């Protein structure tokens, strides 16, 4: 008689799989429950109850800089929103300038000019090895707070005032006809794109650069016409100046606080070094044969760059570039060390005032997670769209 041989359950891979997962899940869940219990017990001892409703309370603290109206009688939620906007503001400004500087550095690193190449290389080597926080502290305490008083401010080109109370730059104030001006510009844009497409169909020889130039000139012309023909000026350029009152003050233009300037400068100079390295790697990733083949096909320098090099380099450059942008957003939280009122700084003030540490930290983390998750969603979409089509 043949006995039916069965595998004991503790050696059966089909069962083991679930067993292991159950044990793991139990372990994680148990640990979580244990920590939560401790936390709730600890909070009860302190007399704090968990809940988000405290965010409706009155903030009663001032915020150094704000993009939307805010007073100390507003709620914590409003203060938090001010913080988010400040984070986005400094991040976007830093991203723009870091990208420009980074691309210049990356391209300069591959220049055939010996001096330019090595200067750029020195920059990349030096700035990548600084500690960002120390670097920011240096810019804030060592540079921007050490600028002269308002009376003795350094003035660049008669327009930009550098003082220890902030940096004032010219800005514009929209006038009554500003909305009309915008409509005019939009119309001009549509018209110029239509015209250029028409031109392209008519004269095939026109290339994209010329079309771009054409559109740009058309827009410039429209702006010029609009500025001088509208009944009142669409906007006034507002220059900063020092008041004549007894206590000197900066007025006019836009005044950027020393905290903002230090944070933005530090982030730009530091991140540009990483972006430079990324751009260099991207250009180098296009093999030499591609250049040569393109030359052999009779494409000129511009077309080689536009049709052959940039599309291939971009595939290599964009993913790490996005993660650098994300790093800028996350690193802007270091503003707390120099007193820039970003979302993290404001939440730590909220924690100090309300005592709701758990909820406030959870809110901040959720905010940053939204930024990073939306970035990685974009990344996935981009990668899928630009996947190299291979045979």
């Amino acid at each position, binding site marked *: 008689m043949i006995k039916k041989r069965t595998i004991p359950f503790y050696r059966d891979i089909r069962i083991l799989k679930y067993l292991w997962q159950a044990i793991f899940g139990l372990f994680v869940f148990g640990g979580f429950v244990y920590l939560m219990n401790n936390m709730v017990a600890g909070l009860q001892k302190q007399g704090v109850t968990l809940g988000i409703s405290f965010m409706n309370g009155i903030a009663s603290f001032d915020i150094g800089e704000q993009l939307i109206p805010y007073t100390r009688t507003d709620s914590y939620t409003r203060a938090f929103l001010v913080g988010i906007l400040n984070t986005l503001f400094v991040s976007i400004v830093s991203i723009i300038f870091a990208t420009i500087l980074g691309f210049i550095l990356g391209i300069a690193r591959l220049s055939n000019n010996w001096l330019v190449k090595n200067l750029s290389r020195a920059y990349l080597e030096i700035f990548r090895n*600084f500690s960002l926080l120390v670097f920011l502290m240096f810019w804030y305490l060592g540079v921007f707070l*050490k600028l002269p008083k308002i009376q003795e401010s350094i003035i660049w080109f008669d327009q930009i005032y550098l003082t220890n109370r902030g940096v004032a730059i010219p800005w514009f104030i929209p006038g009554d006809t500003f909305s009309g001006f915008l409509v005019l510009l939009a119309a001009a844009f549509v018209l110029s794109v239509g015209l250029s497409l028409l031109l392209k169909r008519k004269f095939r020889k026109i290339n994209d650069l010329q079309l771009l130039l054409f559109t740009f000139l058309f827009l410039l012309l429209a702006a010029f016409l609009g500025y001088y023909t509208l009944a009142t000026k669409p906007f006034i350029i507002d220059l900063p100046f020092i008041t004549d009152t007894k206590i000197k003050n900066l007025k006019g233009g836009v005044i950027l606080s020393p905290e903002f300037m230090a944070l933005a400068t530090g982030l730009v100079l530091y991140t540009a070094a990483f972006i430079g390295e990324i751009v260099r790697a991207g250009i180098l990733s296009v093999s030499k044969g591609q250049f040569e083949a393109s030359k052999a096909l009779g494409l000129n320098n511009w077309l080689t760059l536009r049709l052959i090099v940039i599309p291939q380099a971009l595939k290599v450059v964009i993913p790490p570039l996005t993660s650098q942008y994300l790093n800028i957003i996350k690193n802007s939280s270091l503003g707390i060390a120099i007193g820039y009122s970003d979302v993290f700084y404001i939440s730590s003030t909220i924690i100090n005032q309300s005592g709701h*540490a758990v909820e406030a930290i959870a809110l901040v983390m959720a905010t940053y997670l939204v930024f990073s998750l939306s970035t990685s969603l974009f990344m996935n979409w981009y990668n899928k769209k630009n996947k190299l089509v291979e045979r």
Partner: protein
Amino acid sequence: MSTSVIHPPETKLAPLAWLKLNLFNTWWNTLLTFASIWLVYTLSKGILVWVFTEAEWQVVDANLRLFLVGQFPIDQIWRIWIILIFLALLSGSALAIWARNSKKLAIGMALTPLLLALLPFEWSERFWLVGVSLSGVLGWYLASGIGSKVKPLLYTGIGIWFPVSIILLSGFSNSSLTLTEVGTNLWGGLLLTMILTIGGIIFSFPLGVLLALGRRSNLPAVKYFSIGYIELVRGVPLITILFMAQLMLPLFLPAHVTIDRVLRAQVGIILFSAAYLAENVRGGLQAIPNGQFEASHALGLDAFQTTWLIILPQALRIAIPMLVSQFIGLMKDTSLVAIVGLFDLLGIAKTVLAQPEFIGLQREVYAFISIFYWIISYGMSYLSQKIETAVGLGER
């Protein structure tokens, strides 16, 4: 059989021709060259004038000990030297075993403490520095003398170095033993920075490897837990995690357990670093071809043996350059603990600037510690490259 390679003839240019080719070959390059010369001139002039005539460096000179070890008691500083001598012994023997052929690297490492001794330190400190150098040389010759039998000894030494150091530094609260207790509130400066860095590296490494393996696991529960953890931590800034560790770690633990502030920061750094490490290790794991798994299964190795003996050694080898640069980032990031109130290099800088006689010297102090971080960071990357080539990493 050797292949003979015919090198192309080297072109040697006269200086003038070199200048013309590299700096002035087109009008555009000429313009760039002059612009660069102007830039270099203005920048270096400004910096040099400040460094040599305006800056008041006595703030650094007067507080050098604070920068290096913080408030660590003067009469207990020998403990730190013992730790360094032990480290030198281990490095010397490690170099002798794995990098026999690169004598230059070993000599350079042995000479560094001697060169430091030339700086204006006190005589006792110079004596210790010479001791560190000699200990390294001793380690080299000991390891060469004993040969391959020294390996288990060396592994044990490396294994116990960090725990022994921590015990030696903190001492015992029981006064019957000779080592008096030095509380972590007295650890500071470069010492604390290095402890947080090394502790972070040692403990985040196994955690990161486990997370990386978990992320590639075919058990959904493990996989999604790992993904969730990694993405959550990578999505938030380090400072939020440090804040959470400072404020919430005591809450998470039972009421009777108290946790040291330095330890809280260390836990925060480890949890943060592990997530990034996991991604780097995953990069290494993905580079291992499927054939390795299949071959290992065909040889009858089980899942654990496959991972431990076949996959991980190869994956980690691939990941080493990425791991090194991550560890450098970790070192630079430890400065964030100053925000939560610890006295690491940056925290000490703040206390130095709070002394009434040094008010207003922010530029000097921050420039100094910036350079300090820079040297460590650059040194780590330089040394790791040297060691990678010396031990023949990447060659088979």
